[in-house]
């Protein structure tokens, strides 16, 4: 085992690193939803799956590969960055493999009727096709509408809307967000904490339909 990995695994914050890694993996899978990929949801736990693996399975696999030396530990990066890099490639590989089947996976939650999929109509379109750019534009437009819906659910709460706007514009640095929005850094921490209670709406959805339903129902 790499000595730097050995040291990193013995640090007291290793549990925080693992939690961040599994969150990163879950977000990676969840982002595919907004690209038209319909991941399966585990019937037992409702966690999203890419192929047959969940976010935690990907992180465990990444950890195993680092420990047994299948993947080299990059000493110039943190343990979290090393794990994230491996889970990204594993998830991407599962997604590609799923695309190659020509069938799109579908989400099915307990008690929900099975959705029939026409394999020809649902076949994945190659990225480099002539209308690839148009498809991407459609995806972005659809995401924009969804984002507006999320944003509108915070009408009357300007600081939260400003925070969401900053994230939507790809500003992730907390000081930068504070400077842009005029919201003090401490207040931004509070907003992020508050958003946790909205998790079922913002994060716990496997698809657009579900997001819309949850926001409208306010659940």
């Amino acid at each position, binding site marked *: 085992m790499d000595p730097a990995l*050995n040291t990193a695994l013995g640090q007291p914050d290793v549990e925080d690193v*693992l939690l961040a890694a*599994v969150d990163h993996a879950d977000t990676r899978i969840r982002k*595919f939803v907004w690209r038209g990929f319909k991941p399966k949801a585990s019937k037992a736990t409702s966690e999203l799956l890419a192929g047959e693996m969940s976010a935690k399975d990907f992180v465990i696999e990444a950890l*195993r590969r680092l420990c047994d030396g299948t993947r080299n530990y990059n000493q110039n990066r943190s343990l979290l960055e090393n794990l994230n890099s491996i889970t990204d490639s594993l998830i991407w590989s599962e997604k590609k493999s799923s695309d190659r089947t020509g069938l799109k996976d579908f989400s099915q939650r307990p008690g929900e009727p099975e959705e029939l999929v026409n394999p020809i109509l649902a076949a994945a379109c190659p*990225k480099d096709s002539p209308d690839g750019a148009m498809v991407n534009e459609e995806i972005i437009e659809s995401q*924009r509408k969804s984002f507006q819906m999320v944003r509108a659910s915070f009408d009357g709460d300007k600081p939260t809307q400003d925070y969401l706007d900053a994230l939507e514009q790809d500003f*992730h640095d907390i000081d930068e967000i504070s400077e842009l929005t005029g919201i003090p850094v401490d207040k931004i921490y509070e907003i992020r*904490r508050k958003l946790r209670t909205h998790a079922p709406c913002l994060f716990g959805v496997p698809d657009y339909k579900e997001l819309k339903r949850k926001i409208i129902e306010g659940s």
Partner: protein
Amino acid sequence: MNNDKQGPMENLLDGLSKHTKFLSRDERKAELREKGIDVDQFLNEAHSLIASCLKEERLAWMKVADEKRSSIEGAELQITNWLGKSAEAIRAAFENLKQTVNPTSEYTLAFRNKKDLTTDDMANILNDYERLRLRGQNVDGSKDK
């Protein structure tokens, strides 16, 4: 993901994920549970994997020591005992040894008077030489540095 520009929802998910570092450990766990992730099972599995890897790492030197020991024990069994051989065989082997072992090699022969050596002395020298030669070899046949 791919080379396409990220959309608003993807940016939002990325940002919210990066900012989980502002949450306490319990808040973070609660948020993961909201997403359907069995956090306790995940942490148990991860800790168990880490513990087993670190244990394996700690005990790696013992494995090397065991391999060396079995190599030496195996080598002892392979040594020919020249004391039980005939006087002619011992003399022939000793003459051969004198010619093959030169002063620049790793093993040298040093004694005052070769003429006074008995066949038992020669047999003992041959045994010692065999033992030294085999101990200098690793399991894979390579020599120790």
